[in-house]
């Protein structure tokens, strides 16, 4: 029982819900960038929600199955084709031994999640099957897939069903990313803070699993200061600090970067705040050049949004009878 990689796509990796607990040692969370879609894909094929799946970005892989299984593709609109025949996204479909799964051009979003019944059964590394490519850790040999790879599958029971569009979530246009202002906000002027929120930013082409860089907005004006001991000379530099997952750093005050699942754990750039956990999935579905805006929320609003996302997952489970 295995999946053979015929062509790997642009950067297809094994991901589950991630590897929490080691960030203080510099090992990031990793895991799916769109965890809602990852969980949904697993639910559709009868897996545990945290089973390992394939995350494909922008360009799908071509895969061959060596045994019968159930497959579902969720996340961005990357149209699956079974032996050349189009299949729906967000819907479970059976495959037979020898069947080939390929993909058409990406129509919306950025990342697709390919779940196979039984899950991708690579070894656990520090409690997770997620790939952290920068650290060559986890997943399949610590790297993105290559042609000729063979991925073992677990024992699965399979399932049926589909998740309708009203139970999914797509980023708006522009995407609205809610943020909790924080830690180093005092470093920029009040006027710069307002402009940061008023501007429409665009995803830079270099955005990846480590961080999503945005450009096209106004450069930040900093409050003058005396350079602290241990901080760099640029006004955006701070004495090295921990970087939270979701934190928005602005090197040089020009292009904000939101750290994502493969984030570096610390460094010397000021952070304006953090994108709230409820909106991190949306970032994973933003294509290069996609417009986005940041809006400020309070901690109460952030926690309410987190509850809303949990409720949305609950609706998917209820719809599938789980």
């Amino acid at each position, binding site marked *: 029982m295995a999946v053979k990689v015929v062509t790997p796509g642009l*950067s297809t990796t094994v991901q589950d819900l991630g590897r929490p607990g080691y960030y203080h040692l510099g090992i990031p969370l990793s895991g799916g960038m769109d965890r809602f879609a990852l969980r949904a894909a697993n639910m559709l094929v009868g897996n545990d929600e945290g089973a390992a799946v394939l995350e494909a970005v*922008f360009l799908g892989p071509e895969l061959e199955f060596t045994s019968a299984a159930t497959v579902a593709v969720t996340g961005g609109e990357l149209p699956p084709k079974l032996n050349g025949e189009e299949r729906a996204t967000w819907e479970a479909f059976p495959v037979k031994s020898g069947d080939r799964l390929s993909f058409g*051009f990406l129509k919306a979003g950025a990342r697709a999640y390919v779940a196979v019944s039984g899950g991708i059964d690579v070894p656990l590394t520090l409690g997770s099957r997620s790939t952290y490519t920068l650290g060559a850790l986890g997943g399949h040999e610590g790297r993105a897939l290559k042609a000729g790879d063979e991925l073992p599958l677990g024992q699965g029971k399979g399932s049926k069903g589909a998740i309708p569009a009203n139970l999914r979530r797509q980023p708006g246009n522009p995407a609205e990313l809610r943020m909790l202002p924080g830690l180093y906000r005092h470093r920029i002027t009040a006027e710069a803070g307002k402009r940061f929120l008023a501007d429409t930013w665009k995803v830079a082409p270099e955005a990846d699993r480590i961080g999503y860089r945005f450009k096209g907005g106004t450069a930040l004006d900093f409050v003058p200061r005396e350079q602290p001991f241990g901080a760099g000379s640029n006004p955006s530099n701070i004495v090295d600090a921990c970087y939270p997952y979701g934190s928005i750093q602005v090197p040089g005050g020009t292009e904000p970067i939101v750290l994502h699942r493969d984030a570096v754990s610390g460094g010397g750039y000021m952070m304006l705040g953090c994108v709230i956990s409820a909106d991190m999935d949306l970032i994973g579905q933003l294509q290069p050049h996609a417009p986005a805006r940041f809006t400020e929320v309070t901690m109460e609003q952030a926690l309410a949004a987190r509850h809303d996302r949990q409720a949305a997952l609950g609706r998917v489970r209820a719809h599938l009878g789980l």
Partner: protein
Amino acid sequence: MAQILSPLPGTFYRSPSPDQPPFKADGDAVAVGEVIGLIEVMKSFHEVRSDVAGSGLRFVTDNEDPVMAGAVLAEVS
């Protein structure tokens, strides 16, 4: 009229580097598998190869333009 589509979203470049001439000019002939440009995404550059052959290549996407996956980069007659 055949079309050459971008397989990826990103930024389209017509030459291998800023100080080099474009891979192809309007009106050039193109063969299957020939590189017609690059797409930059996620800190790397990916060659776009023609999957058609023809005598008259005409670019419809400009150098450094943002593109979506499936966008028409050039037409071939």
